[in-house]
């Protein structure tokens, strides 16, 4: 039966990337030159070692070759023969990037770019050469080229083997009988045991071997190597002689083989070295190579690449398992109850149903927890990033991470990762001052970036803080005026001014650096966060620092919704999008350009969207007077939704409409309500753009 190696690839990729993360973190925690914690080096070594083992086995030769060199250096470091320097740590960090790129390329089934790895291999070999005069360079190629020198002619041969094991041979589980069975498979075996060393019964120790043997292997096509291979594992624990005895010419090539372990081990390598290319599927060279160097650019693909599977702590699965057990008990209790039900059992029934409710709720929570990962998965990339960035721009920055065990849905985590990178880059680039500036202001020379995460209500809050110069209100205001984003005479509150930095095309940096400040970014950050149903807030004080708070829902699978009724239909409006709900006062309604109605909400004019019109259904109430208006906000725009009735608020499980039906404008998904009916979840930004498109079309039609 052939085993499909490909089925293990995904796990290998995933664990290799995890291993690289561990490696990177360990490297970053190391202070070069100083006495390094052996456990840290061990961690790094193990990560490299695992990747090497796996890549070799799964046929990823390039990765295996590269990690082999890494491993050799790390092994020396582990044995204390070599002390890792600043330079070698830097090289190892670059190797992490390089390996990541290689794995991404493998994942994408692209060909591997070996340019970078070759360069790194060279650098490592140089270090190794310097350390021990050339002993370090990988000998694998030489090994393979060392040919099977004694490939015998293929005639059948007779062999005589003298096998004298040491007494302890049995204690390693090497049973001589097993070896003989293996030999017997190579030809006709006859066996003579020597009992001369066998002690008397009283002196005999049960688990020691006192026997030795002379074996004759006749009519065998096995080579000397094959015979030696049988004894491979016991070669250090026995005296072994293997002689070829030809039937006619006794004095044939007689080769005495003393148990020189080194020689035998090397021979052992040969078949393996030769096997390797056979099982290595050549990567298909279809597309140009994967992204080059630079760890952080790849983060996005890392996230999407790992979307395929999830690792779950066993306790979570156990918990779920327990709950399923309870559910089964409740179920059997209820069906028992149903067998011969009469009204006297009503109380039992209702308590059973209550229990069922409880079970379901707990199970829902438990399943949700399975999708939850600690935010450290997203935070872990930052130590490296901050290290690299602070070196690059010459600022002293220290990272403080808090709340890294706070859990967050995997999908949300993947999507929040890039915006966070952007926020952190901004903080270093624009927030933290240079060391001189800081000293002048009487602040400590080293700036601090703080990452924090915590739960608040049903949300997770992620904070990116710095103790830098803070946001300059006047500079932002002037810049916004200059860019034509606002009028000079508007009065804005502080949060409103801060909010301007999220406007497209806004950048306060005097100079555009390659770290941040290209003017694109903050608006994308805000859009991404909003698309996750989240909010972003800024707190800032001049010369004290800036803190950006990102509020996110814990999961994208469940939504807090407000149920509204329009005619026969019940829709779900995301609770987060709702600003307020009110009863329309007709004097506040303005009719503009034909069909469009605006509602005067304090200082805002809010367009009214009639849901029944947009979705083409019948409503109870088409009269605008005293109707119910749900004011919602989407994409920075407020609109009022005209509904017949406000129903309950509840959590709904989001089902994809696209995968079950097709995309529908103005609807983001569907859910199933308690009574079994299907309810559409309104996509507020989608509905706004759909509605304005429709009204434009209508006015066109009218004009024509």
């Amino acid at each position, binding site marked *: *039966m*052939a*085993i499909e*190696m490909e*089925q*293990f*690839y995904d*796990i*290998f990729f*995933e*664990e290799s990337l995890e291993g690289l993360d561990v490696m990177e973190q360990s490297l970053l925690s190391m202070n070069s030159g100083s006495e390094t914690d052996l456990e840290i080096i061990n*961690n790094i*070594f*193990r990560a490299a*070692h*695992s990747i*090497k*083992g*796996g890549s*070799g*086995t*799964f*046929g990823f030769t390039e990765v*295996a070759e590269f990690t*082999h060199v890494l*491993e*050799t250096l790390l*092994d020396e470091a582990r044995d204390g023969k070599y002390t890792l320097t600043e330079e070698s740590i830097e090289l190892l960090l670059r190797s992490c990037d390089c390996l990541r790129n290689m794995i991404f390329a493998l994942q994408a089934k692209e060909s591997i770019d070996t340019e970078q790895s070759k360069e790194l291999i060279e650098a490592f070999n140089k270090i190794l050469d310097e350390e021990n005069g050339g002993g370090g360079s990988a000998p*694998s190629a030489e*090994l393979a080229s060392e040919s099977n020198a004694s490939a015998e002619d293929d005639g059948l041969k007779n062999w005589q083997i003298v096998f004298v094991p040491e007494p302890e041979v*049995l*204690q*390693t*589980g*090497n*049973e001589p009988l*097993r070896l003989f*069975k*293996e030999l017997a498979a190579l030809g006709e075996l006859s066996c003579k045991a020597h009992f001369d060393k066998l002690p008397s019964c009283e002196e005999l120790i049960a*688990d020691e071997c006192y026997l030795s043997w002379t074996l004759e292997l006749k009519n065998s096509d096995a080579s000397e190597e094959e015979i030696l291979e049988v004894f*491979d*594992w016991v070669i*250090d*624990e026995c005296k072994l002689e293997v002689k070829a005895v030809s039937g006619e010419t006794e004095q044939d090539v007689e080769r005495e083989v003393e148990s020189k*372990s080194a020689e035998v*081990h090397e021979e*052992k*390598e040969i078949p*393996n*070295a030769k*096997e*390797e290319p*056979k*099982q290595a599927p050549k990567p298909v060279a279809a597309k140009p190579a994967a992204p080059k160097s630079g760890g952080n650019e790849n983060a996005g693909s890392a996230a999407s690449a790992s979307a395929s599977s999830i690792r779950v702590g066993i306790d979570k699965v156990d918990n779920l398992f327990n709950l399923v057990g309870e559910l089964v008990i409740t179920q059997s209790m209820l069906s028992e109850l149903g067998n011969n039900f009469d009204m006297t059992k009503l109380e039992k029934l209702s308590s059973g149903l209550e229990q069922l409710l409880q079970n379901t709720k707990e199970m829902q929570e438990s399943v949700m927890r399975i999708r939850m990962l600690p935010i450290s998965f997203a935070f872990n990339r930052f130590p490296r990033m901050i290290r690299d960035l602070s070196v690059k721009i010459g600022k002293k920055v220290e990272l403080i991470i808090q709340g890294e065990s706070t859990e967050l849905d995997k999908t949300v985590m993947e999507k929040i990762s890039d915006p966070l990178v952007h926020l952190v880059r901004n903080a270093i680039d624009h927030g933290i001052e240079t060391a001189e500036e800081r000293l002048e202001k009487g602040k400590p020379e080293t700036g601090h970036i703080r990452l924090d995460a915590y739960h608040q209500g049903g949300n997770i809050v992620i904070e990116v803080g710095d103790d830098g110069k803070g946001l300059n209100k006047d500079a932002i205001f002037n810049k916004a005026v200059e860019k034509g984003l606002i009028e000079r005479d508007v009065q804005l509150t502080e949060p409103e001014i801060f909010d301007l930095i999220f406007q497209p095309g806004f950048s306060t940096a005097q100079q555009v650096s390659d770290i941040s400040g290209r003017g694109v970014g903050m608006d994308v950050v805000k859009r991404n966060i909003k698309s996750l149903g989240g909010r972003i807030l800024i707190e800032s004080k001049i010369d004290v620092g800036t803190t950006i708070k990102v509020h996110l829902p814990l999961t994208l699978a469940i939504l807090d919704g407000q149920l509204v009724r329009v005619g026969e239909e019940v829709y779900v409006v995301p609770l987060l999008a709702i600003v307020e709900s009110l009863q329309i006062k007709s004097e506040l309604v303005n009719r503009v350009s034909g069909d469009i109605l605006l509602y005067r909400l304090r200082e805002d004019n809010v367009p009214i969207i009639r849901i029944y019109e947009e979705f083409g259904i019948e409503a109870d109430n088409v009269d605008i007077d005293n109707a119910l208006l749900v004011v919602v906000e989407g994409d920075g725009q407020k609109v009022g939704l005209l509904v017949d009735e406000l129903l309950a608020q509840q959590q709904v499980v989001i089902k994809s409409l696209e995968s079950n039906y097709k995309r529908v404008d103005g609807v983001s998904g569907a859910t199933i309500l308690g009574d079994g009916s299907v309810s559409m979840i309104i996509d507020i930004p989608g509905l706004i753009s759909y509605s304005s498109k429709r009204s434009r079309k209508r006015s066109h039609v009218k004009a024509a």
Partner: protein
Amino acid sequence: MAQILIVDDSASMRNMVVTTLKSAGHQVVDAPDGQAGLDKAKSGRFDAVVTDLNMPVMNGIELVKNLRNLSSYKYTPILLLTTESSMDKKAAGKEAGATGWLVKPFNPEKLISTVARVLS
């Protein structure tokens, strides 16, 4: 058919070994490190143990030593998964009482035949 314990910290290797040995008709139990392997060995009865060398918590050598100290695993075949670069580890493994080794990278056929070798 035999009961085999595989101990390796790499999930992909573990998975591959488990799948391969199962396909050869064995019953396989796996553990992610030496300590977990030792615990499983104590609570079960295995005809052979296959273990990696470099593992967190308890490495392969320690595991072999510990297993050999248990009367029920005194003669049980124990195979080490090694790489060609760890020659001295093989010696250390033998010293600790390992039966033999399997050099990484190996293919499924090699794994099956090597395990069959110690089970015969």
